[in-house]
């Protein structure tokens, strides 16, 4: 069968942008639910915050920060692509967005542990 032609850098950047957006959309309701505990169940929130000190949770937060920043920088690249004069450096810009996101999330992780 004809396989869709994929696995080149900008297609992967597209997938990363979509999946990070989807993951963040799923994360946000959970995030707001936990925040709402500050008003409704302060004790439960405290025990959750204690649980969040766990290194494995910090690792998950590292992933979350990566998703957030890769979605922001990837989105900025797309906005620039569509609204600024054309640049041929799209692959480098997409790679730069991933690199910058790893830097941001890595810095967060080193601060957090």
């Amino acid at each position: 069968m004809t396989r869709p032609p994929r696995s080149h850098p900008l297609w992967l950047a597209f997938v990363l942008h979509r999946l990070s957006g989807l993951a963040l959309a799923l994360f946000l309701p959970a995030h707001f639910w936990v925040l709402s505990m500050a008003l409704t169940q302060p004790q439960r929130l405290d025990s959750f915050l204690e649980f969040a000190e766990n290194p494995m949770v910090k690792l998950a937060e590292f992933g979350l920060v990566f998703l957030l920043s890769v979605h922001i920088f990837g989105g900025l690249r797309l906005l620039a692509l569509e609204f600024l004069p054309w640049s041929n450096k799209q692959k480098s810009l997409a790679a730069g967005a991933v690199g910058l996101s790893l830097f941001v999330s890595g810095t967060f992780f080193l601060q957090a542990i």
Partner: protein
Amino acid sequence: MEQAEQTHLEVTVRRGDADGGKDEVFRVPAHDNQTILDVVSWIQQYSDPTLTYRFACRVGMCGSCAMMVNGEPRWTCRTHVNKVLDGNKLHIAPLRNLPVIKDLAVDMDPFFDKWVEAEGKHHPTKTRDDPIEQINPESAERSEANAGIECINCSVCYAACDTVAGNPDYLGPAALQRAWTLFNDAKNEDKQTILDAVSGTSGCHNCHSMGSCTHYCPNDLNPMAAVAGLKRETAKSFFRRRKNA
């Protein structure tokens, strides 16, 4: 390459029509210099004369012979077997995103109809009685128009595009690139007609900038940049109209 030692290629060809099809395997003699089109022609001439395919110029100018080769859209007359061989295997199938007529020949009508739908046709500024307009080849506008004029209508970009696969009404990279070329052509008037034609539900704003069109274009053109140009100009025109309303 190992291919020099191999005497035969194992070539799987997708046979069938609009109602479906099946793969058929052929053994084709291997040569040092051999294109995918040579392989397909050998099968048709020496193995199975009922194999249907399409070609004309054999030198990468006419855009007739594009097919899916090992899953990727390619112009078969300029694709060396050595470049795409997987072991000694090849898989050849009709272009993606277009209806199959028979075997490797697809119906290109939807592809060309969309060129017209995108206003990818000339809207003259003058009549034959007017003197010929002088165009500065160095101007930014002309450079932008020149960037896309070498398109050979092979439909490789159209077959590569996942957005076309997901939305059969989407005009596709080639038609939009043509519209962008004409938009930048000083000898083409009625630019707003082009912008209106490309900004509807099937227009340029469907594009997700995956870049498969640019990645696979055999002539190294950049339809993704052309589509981005149309997005920019349609957005500008939208805000201009709101301001003037």
